[in-house]
């Protein structure tokens, strides 16, 4: 086993979204190297958006991401499977071999050693002998195994998985979780968006429960409480085009009233957007979130709407 040096990923008052509407709202926290973090929350909670922010595909509307994220060489990302065109006539070997992109790039030739590495990665996920098969002939579980083999080849210190086990049977999930644990033991940071709470409790020591903002971030058992889950379900999903601009990231005026959010209407469900009174779990090793008063932003960013 080769040790991997991952950097911590630091989210500093991060707001991500589309068209000025926040999908991830004022998120602050730290993902430690080697952590296994599950991101959980209802549909529309901003989980995939957060991953897009981490890979640098989406620029923050406010706040920032620093540390070991946002740079190509340090990240391996498994998107949801529907992004792949399985009708494209490429073989499993070709698909998995693209994990070597960082080493071979656009022009580099594939040698015999690369072929060996691809076969080895396929063996790791139980797909030995599938090299010549067309991608379109794989089952959903086999395709996911192939994508995990590709991640293995990428040899990245940070691995992001977007709903890796949706529509995957238990046997496949157990095999792939073995691989995920191995990545973590090698010192890689693994962040996975998941829906299956039982799987999260069984396999992931750290959890971020979010409903646009963080409801809880820390040890899985302390985050996935019935109370927290009920609060996550209370999130309003629709964007409100008439929502006022969020004052937590004031542009041009820093008279301090941006720290008080009581005047905002947070919609039904009674949750509060800005974290002062969240039951965050503090002081754990590994990943943890801190409720933190946002400071006036020094960099001018466009204001975003509040809901």
């Amino acid at each position, binding site marked *: 086993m080769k040790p991997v040096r991952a950097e911590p990923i630091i989210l500093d008052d991060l707001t991500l979204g589309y068209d000025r509407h926040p999908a991830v709202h004022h998120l602050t926290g730290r993902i430690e190297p080697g952590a296994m973090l599950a991101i959980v929350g209802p549909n529309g909670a901003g989980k995939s958006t957060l991953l897009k922010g981490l890979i640098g595909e989406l620029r923050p509307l406010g706040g920032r991401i620093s540390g070991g994220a946002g740079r190509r060489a340090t*990240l391996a*990302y498994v998107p949801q499977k529907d*992004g792949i*065109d399985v009708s*494209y006539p490429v073989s499993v070997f070709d*698909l998995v071999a693209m994990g070597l992109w960082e080493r071979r790039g656009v022009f580099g030739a594939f040698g015999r050693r690369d072929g060996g590495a691809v076969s080895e990665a396929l063996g790791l996920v139980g797909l030995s002998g599938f090299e010549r098969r067309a991608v379109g002939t794989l089952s959903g579980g086999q395709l996911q195994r192939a994508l995990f083999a*590709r991640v293995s080849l990428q040899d990245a210190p940070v691995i992001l998985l977007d709903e890796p086990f949706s529509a995957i049977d238990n046997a496949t999930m157990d095999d792939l979780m073995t691989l995920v644990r191995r990545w973590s033991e090698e010192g890689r940071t693994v962040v996975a968006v998941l829906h299956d709470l039982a799987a999260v409790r069984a396999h992931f020591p750290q959890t971020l429960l979010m409903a646009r903002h963080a409801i809880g971030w820390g040890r899985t058992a302390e985050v996935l409480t019935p109370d927290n889950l009920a609060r996550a379900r209370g999130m309003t999903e629709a964007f409100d085009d008439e929502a006022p601009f969020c004052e937590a990231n004031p542009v041009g005026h820093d008279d301090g009233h941006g720290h008080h959010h009581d005047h905002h209407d947070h919609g039904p469900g009674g949750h509060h957007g800005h974290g002062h009174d969240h039951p965050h779990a503090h002081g754990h090793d590994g990943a943890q979130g801190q409720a933190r008063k946002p400071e006036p932003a020094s960099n001018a960013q466009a204001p975003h709407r509040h809901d």
Partner: protein
Amino acid sequence: MIDWLVGPFVEFAFMRRALAGILALSLAGAPLGVLLMLRRMSLTGDGLSHAILPGTAIAYALFGLSLWHMTVGGFLAGGAIVLAAGVMARATVLKEDATLASFYLISLALGVLIVSLRGSNVDLMHFLFGSVLALDDPTLTLVAAIASLTLFGLALLWRPLVLDGVDPGFLRTVSRSGAPSYFAFMILLVLNLVAGFHALGTLLAVGFLVLPAVTARFWARDLNGMVLVAGIVALGGGVAGLLTSYHASVPTGPAMILMLGVAFLLSVFLGPVGSVLATHRAGRHRTG
């Protein structure tokens, strides 16, 4: 039989020139067309082939039937429409297929109008259907140069172009080459449409890109095999059309495209991969 096949080429230089032109169009068109089809852009190619018309027509109106002016004009018009359709699709509610269809209709109408104002019906027929039997040396050199550039460019950018089709999200996370290689691909596409325009005219220019590629889909399971089959189909259909046109005294461009069309229709029904026959004949199944 041998004489039927070889005689015209031995006897006439214009037939040999047409053969060389078809060879160039086939070699470049096959890989480009396969990538185009796999990106679900066959119709985009068709639309673009009309988009080059106003450029060639304006060049014709200003400079007459000048190869270089019409080539540059067509390339500029095609490039401008690609950019305009792309920008408009990103800036407005319309999708790229809708913007491109709008632009190509406008282009076709404008181009036909300009040619009609300036020239005769013979010239218009030349614009619409090309003149593969009248390829002079400079035109042939241009077509061959475009084919060489295409093969070179595709060889260079093959990996990002294929990955951008299979898994664009992944390509974005490992490399910045997606957008530039796509842009280069579109430039090569416009160049090949201009080459096709000289031989086949604006209405059929895309024929050597689309028909061989979709035919190859029924004969090969992997990408390399498809490109190989597409090249053979393009060359075979082109030569068959050329000979048919010579012996039966019918227009050459349509004859070649119709031969490709025959190959396509036969493959739809009889090809070994995913054809009507292949999907409806269950056959014996294996044990595992």
